């Protein structure tokens, strides 16, 4: 039994018929119960994965947005703080100036009133001194005149005139 008849190479109707039946069934049943459900599930899973990736990307994006918002808020707050600080400084400056001016004016008023007081006292003192000096001069002159011009009314009025002149000056 050598190469005379190579059996596997000879097409047999029986084997062909069975192959036809079995492969048709195989194709039909495997498609319906295995390949289509598996292919569907794989596609679904791919879509799920894609969706999950997209969602993650969106979440990241959102987070980045939130972060930048926070940043902006922070920046704003900082700016506000510095503004407030500046304003506070200015206010303090103004207040100090005001206080200073107030103090200065009070001081000046006090000094002025003191000076006035001094002037008044000086005038008083001058008046007193003039009066005293006139009296003294009058006394002195009276004594002198009493001795030399006693009884001379002319002399007396003259002296009196002189004393008034002193008073007036």
């Amino acid at each position, binding site marked *: 039994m*050598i*190469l005379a008849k190579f059996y596997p190479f000879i097409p047999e109707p029986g084997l062909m018929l069975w*192959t036809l039946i079995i492969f048709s069934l195989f194709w039909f049943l495997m*498609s319906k119960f295995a390949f289509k459900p*598996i292919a569907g599930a794989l596609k679904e899973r791919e879509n799920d994965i894609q969706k999950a990736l997209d969602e993650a990307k969106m979440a990241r994006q959102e987070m980045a947005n939130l972060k930048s918002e926070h940043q902006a808020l922070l920046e704003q707050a900082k700016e506000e703080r510095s503004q407030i600080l500046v304003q506070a400084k200015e206010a303090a400056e103004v207040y100090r100036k005001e206080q200073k001016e107030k103090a200065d004016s009070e001081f000046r008023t006090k000094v002025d009133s003191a000076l006035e007081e001094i002037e008044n006292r000086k005038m008083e003192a001058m008046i007193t001194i003039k009066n005293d000096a006139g009296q003294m001069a009058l006394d002195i002159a009276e004594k002198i005149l009493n001795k030399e011009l006693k009884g001379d009314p002319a002399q007396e009025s003259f002296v009196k005139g002189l004393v008034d002149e002193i008073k007036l000056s």
Partner: protein
Amino acid sequence: MRKAIICTFGILFLTLALLTAQDHSHHNHDHNHSHDHSSHGHDHSGHNHDHHGHDHSGHNHSHDGHHGHNHASHGHDDHGHGHHCDCGKHDDSFDAGAVAFHHIMDANQFRVFGDINVPLPCFLKSDDGFKAMLSSSFGNAGHGNGKYAIDKYVMVHGTVMRVADEGFPMGKVEVNCYGHEEIVKDGKELPLFTVSYQGKCWKLHEKSTLDGGILGGGITSFYDFSITKNVFTMLLGFLILFLLFRTAAKAYTTRKGMAPKGIQSLLEPVVLFIRDEVAVPFFGHKADKFLPYLLSVFFFIVGLNLIGQIPFFPGSGNVTGSLSVTAVLAIFTFVITTINGNKHYWEHIVWMPGVPAWVKIILTPVEIMGMFIKPLTLMLRLFANITAGHIVLVIFVSLIFIFGGAPSMYESGNMGGSILGTAMAIPLTMFMMAIELLVAFIQGFVFCILSAAYIGAAVEDAHH
């Protein structure tokens, strides 16, 4: 099946033989599956496997089916000295080629070990009507031969044959022995099987085949639609694949939203590979429509290739190495290509646009031939690759017996030679099995991707 015993036990037993150093002629004929007639009682009158050895009178006898009658008297008495049926002649030398060719044949029963066969259903159709039975009804006379003829059908070497002669009785009758010789018909040397019954020699018909006599077959007196070894293997492969994929498919619903596990993660990358590397590149947005067919072809072929690689029952069947099987698969691809072919496809076949008229006249027959050559190459490639693999494996294992150089199947050979043969057979067989494992996947993939290419070309949208 021969590979089954040889691969697993041959090497093991040979080692045992070396240890025990007993009469290893016994081992030899256990392993090379020679036809040991002592096991079923009759002397060396049973079979003749050597067409070189027998004299040419044998040829002459065989041309005349009734010739046996003339010699009936002495033929029956002195048990086969070639006078009738050629049952007697026995050449025992080990023939690795014969072993290999028998291994890749289909059969009506599934041999497990020795003379233990799994019976398979036989569905036979002849002019006498339809007959259904189990192959075990033929009885077991050893070597795959049946003890009985049932309604003219007999079992010879695991294959159902039919007595061509009208004179043979119907019903169940016990037969003597089977003969085998070579005859020359139309310049071709063809085997002729005979059965000896009541001292007469009866010619046997083999089942009808569709080669029209070109390959030595042809329409005979009966058709065999049995569940043969190959059909059994196909059904088994179907069952295994279906259960595997059903388990995986269910896991997608029960384990929804979870990572794949077990069988699911074994099959998923393969399915994805076919989808992304075969279906999508060739079909684009139509991939979903053709993916189930591509997956079916791929897993059917790969599954059967792998089952064929298992060297013992229920493996070893040479399914994808049978032209009948690959032809049907190729026809599927051809039919799908043809019925899905769009205007653009037919235009390119019948009247190729964009070339001068005289070129079109040449191109059209070429394109039409191409339509048929494409599936033919699919059929032949798969068949040749798998068959060649099976043959080479058997031959490599046979090195043990070839180097052993036993003068016959029943005498001890040369121990040194056997050891040398074994030393060569083990690495070569291991290498070959590894290659075949690769080939199993490659051929499945090639059939799948080429089918995709052919169908893809037919459904492709016009792009110019």
